[in-house]
């Protein structure tokens, strides 16, 4: 199964030996107290009594130093090393193994002893962990004389079960072909059963292939087959429950432990003669059988966590016919046992032990089933690295077969990350809970759980707190949320994408500002980060303080960053506003400008909505995450606004320069009296239009693009105008667009204006102006308007006439425009007037 590796060839050899041997030696010196060397503090290299201990121990020791190193070490190498050690010191092992066996099991009150060891994490180094588990889970009876018999009974029963359930249709014997053929749909047909099994198997197989993907052991074909077969048999034996996702994660550690013990035993037994009991119990041939026995016993307790049947819903319905009026959503769902359990843990246990954390989670509306379902179902299988998990399980099983320590470990786990949770927003909390941070000392967690359950009989453990940078969990939380939302709704995803990219863009923009801006001390910043990030517990230790200090520092720097980015746009804004004041036409240009560069603020608002969706429904909770994001947003918005203002100023300048130059050109041309003067003038007018767009006095929109021809006529209006008149023309040009909207939206205002019986043009523009004025909320004297109008109307007529004569191509249009040219003087025709400017409206009326 394993490749034997020679001493020299293995690259990790020396390292492994070093780390591998030390703990064993300490173990040998103090037999039965392997747990004490957990932290690897004792390095007695001088002791040359390097005897073989279960290589699992050495491996576990190794990985307990480097928590994440599971993947980096090839699993294969470890047994090889074990073998090497076994060969060198087989006899010693025999002695120590027998000694341990005696220590553990040859005792009047041995069960109590191993229970204690399990709870204290002292089975970490045991070579008989699997036997202990069997005892804890009552797979083996307390009476030692019954062990062999019980074991063989269980094994034969599994063989029978397997024979019944795992069918091979070809070995069916001589059944009737009509019934037993591959396409038969008869209930009794083996083939039919086979195909039904195939589906179940496929389901199990799918999960088994991804059991502990980081461990080589579970990638082996035969191990996978064992897992699949055991799960399959269990599913067939328990038709009600069948197979549920997650069971494989419970089975895998059991198989692993059995395998380790078998390996250790078989290597040792080559050299010496172990007792009969050991031989039977640790027979590698029956790995599958033993795994099934332990697994089924474990599932007896755990099965109701997997079942999705509504066990007690009937009773509950009788008691309470109507649901609670203000019940939370997690309370309203079907009362599945597991959901009820995790809710009970959070609502009662957590509330009792840490009301603050409970409130925080409630406020964020993090339902316990989001993370707790997995925690409980897998018995924390995904939350700890395997070697730590096994210690947790030791304690769980040793404590009681009902596994009621689960609840308290659950709470202890929450308490371990409480400070991080409380100081985090929804996203980071989710990240923390779904990707539980690596824990330094698992045993402290167990002690804490015991203390929580029974404070009188258990000593108060030292408070450990998770202390780390939360950025990683924030990111993971964001991933999770995106995933969840994507599956929940398809539509918001796009928005997210867009706003995310916008966000990044915004960050990039801010980055230079950060560098350039000086440090700004902000007295207000302190208040936005409430003292909740400070530890409340009195037992908090020095490093913890430091940590919080760090955290706060981090926050502060963040704050500063925001301030920096904010400071720049403010200045820009000031400069801009003064400019605005100096350049008189103000309202039009402003509104026009806003229209023209409409997209950036829009995107900002999008971003806003993005954030509000992130913290959706958590609005009632005035969490600081919200504040944080809002502040950040504001900074971004103001920065973008600054950029916008810059652009506007640039446009203004361009327009101004263009205006003067165009004026010069026009003067010269008018003096020259060229042949094709008109054409030049028309194109000049076009340039003027561009100038107006730049200036912002001319609205740039799609309709203009579409109706380009008509536009040209309108532009010809003012090609003789001076600067002043131009603005008036701008008003006029603006007016019709507004009017058009008015006409299409409702005739109310126009009918009003027509009934007023005043001069149509004035009246008309008045309406528009009112509209404009009401929008910008800046009243303008009517006289100036009047002036504008008059100046606008005259050149309009002049220019049109010039057009009619000059351009033969415009014939068809000129016909209509000649019709219309009379309209400014025609007082009665409001409609035709309108059609002159906005082209569409006759149909509307």
């Amino acid at each position, binding site marked *: 199964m394993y490749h034997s590796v020679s001493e020299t060839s293995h690259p990790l050899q020396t390292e492994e030996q070093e780390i591998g041997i030390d703990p064993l030696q300490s173990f040998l010196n103090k037999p039965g107290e392997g747990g004490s060397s957990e932290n690897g503090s004792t390095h007695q290299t001088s002791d040359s009594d390097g005897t073989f201990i279960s290589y699992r121990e050495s491996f576990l020791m190794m990985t307990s130093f480097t928590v994440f190193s599971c993947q980096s070490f090839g699993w294969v190498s470890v047994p090889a090393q074990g073998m090497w050690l076994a060969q060198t010191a087989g006899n010693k092992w025999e002695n120590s193994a027998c000694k341990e066996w005696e220590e553990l099991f040859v005792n009047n009150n041995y069960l109590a002893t191993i229970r204690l060891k399990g709870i204290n994490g002292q089975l970490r180094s045991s070579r008989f962990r699997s036997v202990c588990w069997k005892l804890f889970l009552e797979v083996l009876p307390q009476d030692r004389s019954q062990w062999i018999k019980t074991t063989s009974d269980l094994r034969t029963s599994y063989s029978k079960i397997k024979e019944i359930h795992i069918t091979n249709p*070809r070995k069916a014997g001589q059944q009737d*072909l009509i019934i037993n*053929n591959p*396409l*038969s749909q008869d209930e009794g047909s083996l083939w039919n059963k086979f195909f039904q099994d195939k589906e179940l198997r496929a389901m199990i197989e799918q999960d088994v292939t991804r059991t502990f993907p980081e461990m080589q052991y579970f990638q082996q074909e035969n191990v996978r087959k064992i897992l699949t077969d055991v799960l399959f048999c269990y599913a067939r034996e328990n038709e009600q429950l069948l197979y549920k996702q997650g069971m494989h994660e419970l089975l895998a550690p059991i198989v692993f432990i059995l395998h380790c013990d078998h390996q250790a035993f078989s290597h040792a037994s080559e050299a010496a003669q172990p007792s009969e009991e050991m031989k039977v119990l640790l027979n590698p041939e029956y790995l599958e059988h033993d795994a099934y026995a332990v697994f089924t016993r474990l599932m007896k307790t755990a099965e109701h966590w997997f079942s999705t049947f509504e066990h007690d819903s009937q009773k509950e319905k009788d008691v309470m016919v109507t649901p609670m009026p203000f019940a939370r959503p997690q309370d309203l769902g079907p009362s599945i046992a597991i*959901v009820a359990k995790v809710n009970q843990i959070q609502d009662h246990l957590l509330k009792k032990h840490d009301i603050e954390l409970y409130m925080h989670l409630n406020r964020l509306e993090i339902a316990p089933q989001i993370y707790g379902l997995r925690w409980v179902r897998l018995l924390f299988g995904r939350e700890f690295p395997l070697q730590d998990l096994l210690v947790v399980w030791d304690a769980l099983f040793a404590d009681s077969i009902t596994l009621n320590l689960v609840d308290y470990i659950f709470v202890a786990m929450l308490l371990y990350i409480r400070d991080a949770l409380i100081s985090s927003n929804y996203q980071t909390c989710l990240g923390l809970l779904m990707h539980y941070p690596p824990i330094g000392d698992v045993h402290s967690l167990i002690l804490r759980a015991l203390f929580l359950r029974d404070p009188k009989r258990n000593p108060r453990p030292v408070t450990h707190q998770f202390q780390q940078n939360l950025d990683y969990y924030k990111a993971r939380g964001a991933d999770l949320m995106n995933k969840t939302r994507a599956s929940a709704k398809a539509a918001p995803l796009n928005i997210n994408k867009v706003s995310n990219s916008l966000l990044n863009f915004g960050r990039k923009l801010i980055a230079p500002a950060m560098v350039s801006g000086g440090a700004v001390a902000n007295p207000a910043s302190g208040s936005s980060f409430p003292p909740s990030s400070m530890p409340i517990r009195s037992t908090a230790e020095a490093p913890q303080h430091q940590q919080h200090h760090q955290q706060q520092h981090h926050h502060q720097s963040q704050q500063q960053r925001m301030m920096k980015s904010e400071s720049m746009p403010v200045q820009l804004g000031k400069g801009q506003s003064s400019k605005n004041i100096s350049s008189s036409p103000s309202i039009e240009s402003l509104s026009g400008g806003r229209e023209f560069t409409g997209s950036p603020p829009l995107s900002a608002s999008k971003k806003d909505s993005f954030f509000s969706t992130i913290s959706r429904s958590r609005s009632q909770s005035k969490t600081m995450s919200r504040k944080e994001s809002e502040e950040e947003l504001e900074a971004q918005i103001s920065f973008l606004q600054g950029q916008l203002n810059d652009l506007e100023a640039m446009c203004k300048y361009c327009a101004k320069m263009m205006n003067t130059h165009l004026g010069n050109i026009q003067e010269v041309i008018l003096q020259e009296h060229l042949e094709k003067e008109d054409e030049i003038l028309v194109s000049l007018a076009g340039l003027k239009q561009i100038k107006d767009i730049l200036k912002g006095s001319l609205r740039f929109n799609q309709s203009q693009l579409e109706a380009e021809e008509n536009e040209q006529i309108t532009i010809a209006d003012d090609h003789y105008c001076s600067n002043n008149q131009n603005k008036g023309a701008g008003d006029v040009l603006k007016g019709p667009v507004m009017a058009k909207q008015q006409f299409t939206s409702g005739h109310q205002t126009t009918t009003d204006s027509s009934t007023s019986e005043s001069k149509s043009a004035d009246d008309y523009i008045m309406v528009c102006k009112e509209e404009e004025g009401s929008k910008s909320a800046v009243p303008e004297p009517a006289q100036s308007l009047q002036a504008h109008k008059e100046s606008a109307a005259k050149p309009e007529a002049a220019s049109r006439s010039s057009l009619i004569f000059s351009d033969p191509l415009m014939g068809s249009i000129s016909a209509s425009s000649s019709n219309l040219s009379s309209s400014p003087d025609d007082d009665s025709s409001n409609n035709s007037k309108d059609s002159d400017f906005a082209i569409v409206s006759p149909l509307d009326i």
Partner: protein
Amino acid sequence: MEGSAVAWLSWAPPPRHSAAFMRLGLLHRLAPPLVLVLGDLHIPHRCSALPAKFKELLVPGKIEHILCTGNLCTKESYDYLRTLAGDIHVVRGDSESLNYPEEKVLTVGQFRIGLIHGHQVIPWGDAASLALLQRQLDVDILISGHTHRFEAFEYEKKFYINPGSATGAYSALERNITPSFVLMDIQASTVVTYVYQLIEDDVKVERIEFKKY
């Protein structure tokens, strides 16, 4: 609960290596690769459809491969077969509307299987002529059709299968045809052939075993 359900499903990391996907192929090894052999449907020219009893038997999910000796005649028939299995091989018959290859050689397990409609082999269905083709293609099993009569026999240590007509369509020489098709269960070095025949509205099954030498 919705959110939690999603979280629950997404906890397990997907298989990381493509090797893991390859191991899913284990499933196929556990499942016997059942090979359906049929042909000469002649829908809609000589028959309207497959017999209802046959249609009941042929359900998706059981059959791995389909070998068709041709004369499906229409694309609709082909599409129907596609619903039964993903892997389908057809050769061209003498009254085909679609274009298929004249002959095919496939490997299933340890067996090389030759597939031909059979109107090219003269005399039709003659063992010696088929053996000539078998040597030419160098196959262990030669599958041919066209005669609309089920046959499965060993000849010079090679195996010959003629699935007959699945619809019971008349042939050039005979009017009364028994609808039949063949299912091959290929194990290491043996082929167990199940013959399904519709005799007087009842499906009869026969079992023939062939060992590779």
